[in-house]
């Protein structure tokens, strides 16, 4: 059975491209664009990994991550944060909030595929 990735991102064309490259590698990919309801969707969908944008409408990726890590069920859920905010303090904030991997935009498809693969293997 293929692993399930939830892409929380509001840029339609990024969703399409990332969905394509991950699907090509055998992942089942769903997407969600609203920050405010993202945690609820993750609780319902229960993905194997979340790819999370930082700047989302409704709630920031950082707040979503913090909320997730406060729930013992999602303490070890792999979360890859994709963000345009790449300064050292942004990375530090994300790491403090419990991010598994931090990647800045623009990213390469290979980096994303490799990161997703590594993170799921580590989580096993």
């Amino acid at each position: 059975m293929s692993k399930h990735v939830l892409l929380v991102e509001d840029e339609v064309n990024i969703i399409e491209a990332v969905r394509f490259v991950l699907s090509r590698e055998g992942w089942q990919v769903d997407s969600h664009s609203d920050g405010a309801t993202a945690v609820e969707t993750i609780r319902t969908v229960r993905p194997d990994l979340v790819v999370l944008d930082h700047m989302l409408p409704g709630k920031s990726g950082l707040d979503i991550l913090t909320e997730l890590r406060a729930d013992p069920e999602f303490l070890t859920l792999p979360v890859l944060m994709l963000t345009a905010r790449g300064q050292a303090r942004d990375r530090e904030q994300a790491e403090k909030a419990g991010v598994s991997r931090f990647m800045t935009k623009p990213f390469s498809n290979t980096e994303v595929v490799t990161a997703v693969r590594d993170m799921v293997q580590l989580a096993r």
Partner: protein
Amino acid sequence: MREALTGTRIRDRRVMAGTKQSELARQIGISASYLNLIEHNRRRIGGKLLLDIASALGVELSALTEGAEAALVATLREAGSDSTMPKSEFDSAEDFAGRFPGWADALALSHRKLVGLEHTVEVLSDRLAHDPQLAASVHEVLSTAASIRSTASILAEDKDLSAEWRDRFHANIDADSRRLADSSKTLVGFLDSETGEAAITGTPQEEVEAFLEAHSHGFEAVEDGTADVIKMIEDAPQITSLAAAHIARGLLERMIDDSARVSLYDLRDEIAKVGIAPPHLAARFGVSVPCILRRLAAVPELGFGLVVADRAGSLLFRKGAEGFVIPRYGSACPLWPLFQAMGQPTQALHQRLHMPGRGEAMFDCFAAAEPIGPIALNIPPLVQSTMLIVPVAAADASTGPAPFGVGPACRICAVADCAGRREPSILSDGF
């Protein structure tokens, strides 16, 4: 003390007075050629001759002897205080300026440039760190670039891509490239407006500030009671949004109201009698202390700054004073008396402040808060706090209360171990 600049000041004053060199020379009983040498700083001057020149030009002696020289020595001391120079050398700034005037000028010029650049860095850093519009604009550019990169990479690397997917990704790249062109233009325009003449930028408050700055924060029509607020706003090229027009209207109406209560003419008269004494002046004119602080900031020749904030800490009005940095975005230093006054509305506070890293500059700051809007039972009033920023003359710096160190805003403040710090400073991080 060297006299080099005294001659230049004599010449400047004479030209301003419209007096010919030969005429002034005749009045003070010396030859025109000797006066010419003095004016070109090739002859030392002092004593009675200097007094005679001041008298003939109708100026105070200090206008010819102080100012430029004092400013030069003060700048040299400021430069020295930023280094680890021994005290014995620090005290010899005046001697240095007298013995090596050219080097002294060069050092002072370099120091002033350094201070100016430091200020520019602070302003730009402040903007980059806190401006939500800039952050959104950069995010838009990077996200679109990410989309194009990812899609282009699929098209380049996947040789077995179906025609349907290929067309779809081509369409996405086309749409994203147009979006990138637009968002890049927006970003460039946004950054250019900082250095260009048009300070008309994104936020309504910035539009209003550009409007006020274009009029040096003063309006003749407001002072003489002939102001037509609607027309003033309609005629202002800086005000383009409805929100800015709303803010400008509120400010102008308050200025008109303040002006009707305290005319600049009467205020100048009273200042001449009692000095800068806000509670006394407020009582004399029968107005609140915040009102008198606003009026003092409106006297153009005083060069005072003013900040107004609401209880949420938002800066609603900014008028800068030389050397006192007021952040354009984000929160200001919580140690300013502006915020202390919020806790004791109607009580006037006075504190002498010093901004570390700003040389020896000190500021006498007066702050008071007052309720805004109608008072209702059991509902706390809205409060606005006002702070007047009065630069302290170098000569007065050694008298009066000891200065209290504050910063502009945490991000651009180098003070270590501050209880009020909200975020690390880029200055202390070795930026």
